[in-house]
């Protein structure tokens, strides 16, 4: 028997059950991003006065959304997310509708694109290549291509921000970068974060943890034994950010693809254990 080719190895089918979890988490993260935009439509996304044409968004040179138009675009985005939640044949058109509507609003606003707006778009790209339109994925093995897209994206996201922190004047190693962010008027200011900003013995190890986790992620995520540990560390990092800073839906968005990032065989093991337990819990009733 001949050895498997590079393409057989790269495209070997992987357990696909995690895609269902990621699809639902992505919808929730999308709603957490989209719903707060509703009261801002008249003021920011489709105002009559504060209209900007700014690189790379020159939408206003061609189209200016009316408040009603803005509302319709917003509703289309919500509808797209609901279609994605419904799944089946509606999943991909729904995802595309959500992405298009979301970016139309952002382009109309032109000024305030957040990191999570870009993150949710890259994750959406991974989902487009995943088996999101299929049902019963816990019993199926599918192409890993969408997972490779997501892994590559997260390697870039965490790796890049971690390496930049590690290099930039080394303030993340020995300084107090995090402390200053924790008392920021907008991103910071929570009682816990403000207190932490005065505790060097606590925030310094937190800085080291952040840089070590992020900078090592690109390698660790590919090693089966480290993969679940790094994802737990990532979940803790995002929990810490959520508890101490105000970064909007960033934490939900970033965590939404974690089920697919988890090594598929580890994920399948967890699913089978969960199913067995649910089955044994349900058996007396049967």
């Amino acid at each position, binding site marked *: 028997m001949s050895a498997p080719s590079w*393409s057989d190895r*790269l*495209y070997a*089918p992987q357990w696909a059950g995690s895609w269902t979890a990621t699809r639902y988490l992505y919808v929730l993260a999308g709603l957490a991003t989209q719903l707060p935009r509703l009261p*801002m439509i008249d*003021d*920011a996304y489709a*105002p009559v*006065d*504060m*209209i*900007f*044409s700014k*690189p790379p968004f020159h939408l*206003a040179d*061609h189209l200016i959304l009316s408040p009603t138009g803005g509302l319709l675009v917003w509703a289309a985005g919500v509808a797209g997310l609901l279609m994605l939640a419904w799944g089946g044949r509606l999943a991909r058109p729904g995802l595309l509708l959500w992405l298009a509507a979301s970016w139309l609003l952002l382009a109309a606003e032109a*000024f*305030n694109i*957040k*990191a999570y707006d870009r993150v949710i*778009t*890259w994750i959406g790209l991974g989902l487009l290549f995943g088996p999101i339109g299929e049902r019963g994925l816990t019993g*199926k*093995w*599918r*192409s*890993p*291509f969408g997972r490779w*897209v997501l892994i*590559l*994206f997260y390697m*870039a996201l965490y*790796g*890049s*921000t971690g*390496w*930049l*922190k590690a*290099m*930039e*004047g080394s*303030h*993340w190693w020995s*300084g*107090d*970068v*995090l402390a*200053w962010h924790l*008392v*920021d*008027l*907008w*991103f910071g*200011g929570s*009682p816990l974060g*403000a207190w932490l*900003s*005065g505790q060097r013995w606590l925030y310094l190890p937190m800085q080291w943890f952040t840089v070590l986790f992020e900078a090592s992620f690109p390698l660790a995520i590919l090693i089966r034994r480290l993969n679940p540990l790094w994802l737990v560390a990532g979940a803790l990092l995002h929990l810490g950010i959520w508890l101490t800073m105000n970064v*909007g839906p*960033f934490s939900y968005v970033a965590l939404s693809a974690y089920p697919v990032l988890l090594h598929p065989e580890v994920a399948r093991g967890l699913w089978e254990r969960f199913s067995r337990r649910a089955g044994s819990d349900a058996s007396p009733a049967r």
Partner: protein
Amino acid sequence: MAQDRRTTPPALRLPGLVFLLLMAGYQALAFRYALSDPQTWPDWLKEHSFSLWPATWSMFTTRDRSHTLLEARARYPEGWQDVDLNAVFPSRWESGPRYIRKPFWRSRTYNKTLAWSLCGRLERRPLAVEITKVEWRKTLGQVEQPRKDEERTRLIGWDCEERLTLPQGRRL
């Protein structure tokens, strides 16, 4: 029972690999220039400075030791009155109102649009408005952020009779 296993058809595998390589290259390029001085950028990047922005992830990387706020006041026949900008422009993101963002208040054009919009949004139309940037040093260890060593910079004074043209020639 046989497992339900399917994967990418052979004809699409090479294009798929090329896509992954291009994506990796794009992300690496964005990382390369993420914090570099724009003066050192190659010509193609200077011309299209936003081409790498979708993959630039410099989040909370650098130190920021000061707070920035914008304050405004409006001139009526009886004199100047302070204006609560947050009430007039209520949209708020986790990074604050959009006019707090550095690229916004650094731009004369955007400040003009803000001032002109402020004239139109106030209940009673003023004769003029003035917008000032206030910066002060952050205080670690506490929620309250007293305005220590406050620095005030007048960004713009705007006569509300003056006209401003928005994209597509739109005027209020």
